[in-house]
């Protein structure tokens, strides 16, 4: 009797370990996460428009249909990246995601405080390698540090009414992300 109880207790403990292990491992194993979905349409280090979601087709679930979206799938292994997007009349934002879809930084047009959102994206190691004198001029240039070598920059421009869709697309068309 006690033997059976011990086996059951052991089974429950093991169940807990299996549960935690699968929860922790799943994000690394997922084949259909946002990064994988975007990779199907986006070449590396280039800004590509994401089709507006419709009831029939959407590249990701829970996309906000009021926004026009472009994505830059970045790879910093060859060096830092320069990113810029002009600010439109309506709300514009730029969000950064790691390779495993964790949002680590986001900035909107008002927080940028200029007519252009302009920044340098690099890894922590690349930032440490910046020459000293560049570090001084870095005061007026926004540097974003990516926790992973690859990831996603998502540029979103709001079209508050259907008539503003063309303007939002125009903003996104002027976005640039390129290797330095």
């Amino acid at each position, binding site marked *: 009797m006690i033997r059976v109880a011990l086996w059951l207790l052991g089974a429950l403990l093991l169940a807990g*370990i299996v*549960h935690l292990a699968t929860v922790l491992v799943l994000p690394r194993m*997922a084949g259909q996460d946002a990064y994988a979905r975007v990779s199907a349409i986006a070449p590396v280090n280039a800004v590509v428009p994401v089709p507006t979601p419709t009831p029939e087709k*959407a590249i990701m*679930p829970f996309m906000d249909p009021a926004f026009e979206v472009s994505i830059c799938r970045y790879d910093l292994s060859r060096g830092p990246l320069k990113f810029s997007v002009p600010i439109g009349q309506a709300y514009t934002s730029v969000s950064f*995601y790691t390779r495993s879809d964790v*949002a680590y930084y986001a900035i*909107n047009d008002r927080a940028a405080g200029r007519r252009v959102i302009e920044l340098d994206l690099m890894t922590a190691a690349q930032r440490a390698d910046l020459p000293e004198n560049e570090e001084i001029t870095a005061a007026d240039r926004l540097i974003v540090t990516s926790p992973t070598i690859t990831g996603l920059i998502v540029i979103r421009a709001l079209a*508050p*009414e259907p008539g503003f869709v063309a303007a939002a697309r125009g903003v996104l068309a002027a976005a640039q992300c390129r290797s330095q």
Partner: protein
Amino acid sequence: MMLALVIAAAIGLSGTWLALTQGTAYGGVTIGAWTGWPKNGTPGIDPYARAIVARTGELPIGSGDGVAFYARTDDAGQPLDGRCDVLLSGVTPQARFWTLTLYDPEGRLVANSAQRQGFTSQEIIRNADGSFDVNVGPRARPGNWLPTGGVEKYLLVLRLYDTPVGMATRTGREAPMPAITKRACS
């Protein structure tokens, strides 16, 4: 021995499955029928939410961008049914822009004859006091009509952009959310 291993695997895996499909991530801010997870837009996102995001394939909204609140039920706790008339009324928390969108439980937009999937704060018709009413239901209504396409289950997502609402928000007094009331069902 074998039995114990089988039980362990079964309970462990079904626990994971339940946690990921039932949306039981921790750290949510619940106001009325609405729940948001502002932490999911930061590197501090918890492991359950990360696993959910990896499974569904969505990108959580970054915390410097905005915050999303989800409603799967009305204020009385009844699941939102697309065959019923539901009234959404009230005001939203402070934000530069907001959008209200209707999705099916898998996060797809719902097809309907009016080709309307939601409202933005700029499109919505407001009452004299700045509040608004949205009729969510299968049949056309005057004013703000958000069609459900008659689907059995749906959820509403209210996204606030450039907003002070975030991880520090706790109560409905700081962040008043619209009430969701079920009317007649067909």
